[in-house]
């Protein structure tokens, strides 16, 4: 018998008045998986996450978290979840350390146990030096690490991260990824939302692409790229604003964007040679590996980050 999924959803719907945020999605997340929701803002990722975290109730459809019903057993489920919301909601009246110890108490942990876990997590989040500081002066990356540390205070079976690195600089993002990767290696099940394809590629074993409240594709990052894109992509820019899309026909699938033209090819260099052979002179040429961004563009006709 296969292992029971930690998250099980069928025809899950969330409506706010007339607006349908989540429009009938099916999901199964297995223990130990790192699962991602990829999509632009407004795709329904956060609404789905809030339902999974048993804070917001589904409008209709079936949802089981850790094998339990969120409507009837919310507190019991939340006791085993770690939630890192999109916007940091750290307590501004408490110190860094107290943010952890106070939070541990909400889970019914003893004072001594709360202190022990706070020390462990301060180390995990590399915030030992800031233990006594208030939250406000911390950098964005530090606040994020503290929020993630806080979500681990109850040693959760399932950690939910809503856009964990949005708004962080590259260095802070890499540090955070490294910490999340460490969690994943320990066997913690991670569910995250992101609109960064590199984040999804780095962290997720499996992901769904969401758009307009629906799941439009599902698979591992590699399999999605193989299915919906070509191994390589050539990005061409032309200085004179003439429509070159027609002149590229036959080289590969052409996708004209406002500022550049994407040319999908099995062999990028060969495609570039062909462009030059046709006498075209782009102002810049970039050959790169295909990414989830291309998958998303192919599926929805839009880019991920506006």
């Amino acid at each position: 018998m296969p292992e029971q999924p930690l998250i099980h959803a069928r025809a899950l719907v969330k409506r706010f008045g007339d607006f349908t945020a989540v429009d009938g999605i099916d999901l199964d997340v297995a223990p130990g998986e790192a699962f991602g929701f990829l999509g632009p803002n407004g795709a329904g990722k956060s609404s789905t996450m809030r339902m999974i975290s048993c804070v917001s109730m589904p409008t209709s459809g079936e949802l089981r978290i850790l094998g339990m019903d969120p409507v009837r057993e919310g507190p019991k489920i939340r006791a085993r979840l770690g939630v890192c919301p999109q916007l940091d909601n750290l307590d501004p009246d408490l110190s860094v350390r107290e943010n952890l110890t106070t939070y541990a108490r909400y889970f019914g942990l003893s004072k001594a146990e709360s202190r022990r876990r706070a020390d462990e997590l301060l180390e995990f989040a590399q915030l030992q030096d800031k233990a006594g500081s208030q939250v406000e002066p911390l950098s964005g990356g530090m606040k994020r690490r503290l929020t993630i540390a806080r979500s681990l205070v109850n040693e959760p079976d399932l950690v939910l991260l809503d856009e964990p690195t949005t708004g962080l600089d590259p260095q802070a993002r890499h540090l955070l990824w490294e910490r999340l990767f460490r969690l994943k290696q320990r066997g913690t099940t991670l569910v995250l939302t992101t609109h960064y394809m590199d984040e999804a590629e780095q962290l997720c074993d499996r992901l769904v692409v969401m758009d307009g409240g629906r799941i439009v594709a599902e698979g591992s990052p590699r399999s999605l790229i193989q299915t919906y894109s070509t191994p390589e992509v050539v990005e061409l820019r032309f200085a004179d604003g003439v429509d070159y899309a027609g002149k590229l026909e036959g080289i590969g699938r052409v996708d004209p964007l406002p500022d550049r033209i994407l040319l999908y090819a099995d062999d990028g260099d060969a495609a570039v040679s062909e462009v030059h052979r046709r006498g075209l002179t782009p102002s810049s040429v970039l050959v790169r590996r295909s990414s989830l961004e291309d998958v998303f563009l192919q599926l929805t006709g839009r880019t991920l980050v506006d």
Partner: protein
Amino acid sequence: MISTMVAARVSPSRVGAVMNRNVGALRSGPSYWLVLLSGFFEPVLYLLSIGIGVGALVGDLTLPSGRVVEYAVFVAPAMLAVSAMSGALSETTFNFFFKMKYSKTFDAILATPVKPFEIALGELAWAMVRSSVYTIAFLMVMVALGLTSPGWALAALPATLLVGLAFGGVGMAISTLMRGWQDFDMLTTGQFALFLFSGTFSPVQDYPVAMEIVVWLTPLYHAVELVRGLAIGELSWGLLGNAAYLLVMMALGLTFAARRIQRTLCV
């Protein structure tokens, strides 16, 4: 009330954790302590200026029972009820609203096993700490000034707790309806009107009948009646009615606040 609590399976440790958060916040800086201190002095200053100052001009006052007391003896229990009210309200309005709307403290708590009703209970319990600090200090002032006896002061203490619970419950309920800080002006004005016209400075029996009925419906009147009856030892069956009013007020406030937390934050 009790059945609601049992149905909701309230966990004392989770309620305690919500309270514990506020104890932690006390250490955040001196500003909180200043606010705490000023809240205590306000009714004391009224007692001194009006109860004793104006009282010297007013002279003595005859109670419905026929007993004659100094004006300050009449005013002091009202100020005691006011301090219980304002102690509970200051925690459950400004601070509660900030935690609910701006610092997203309750959002963070609701991601844990803690339930909306437990947040409401924990916040109310915390408000009672502040309210009790005010009333105990004020009772000591009253005993020191000879405005009540130690025995009646002890009898009045539970009454002030009930006053705090009632206003704290309603304060939270009101806070969940606030749209922004500007709405608090209305609350402050309402609180001041209650403060002036709840039989605080003059017996309600002296008001025009229509006014007396309006006052009879408002909460601080019942708080003042109950606290005054016990503080000056004028016991009557009417006090039970006052206490019942306050109990219902607390239960409704708590239930409404919990439901609003659920409706607003768990969407």
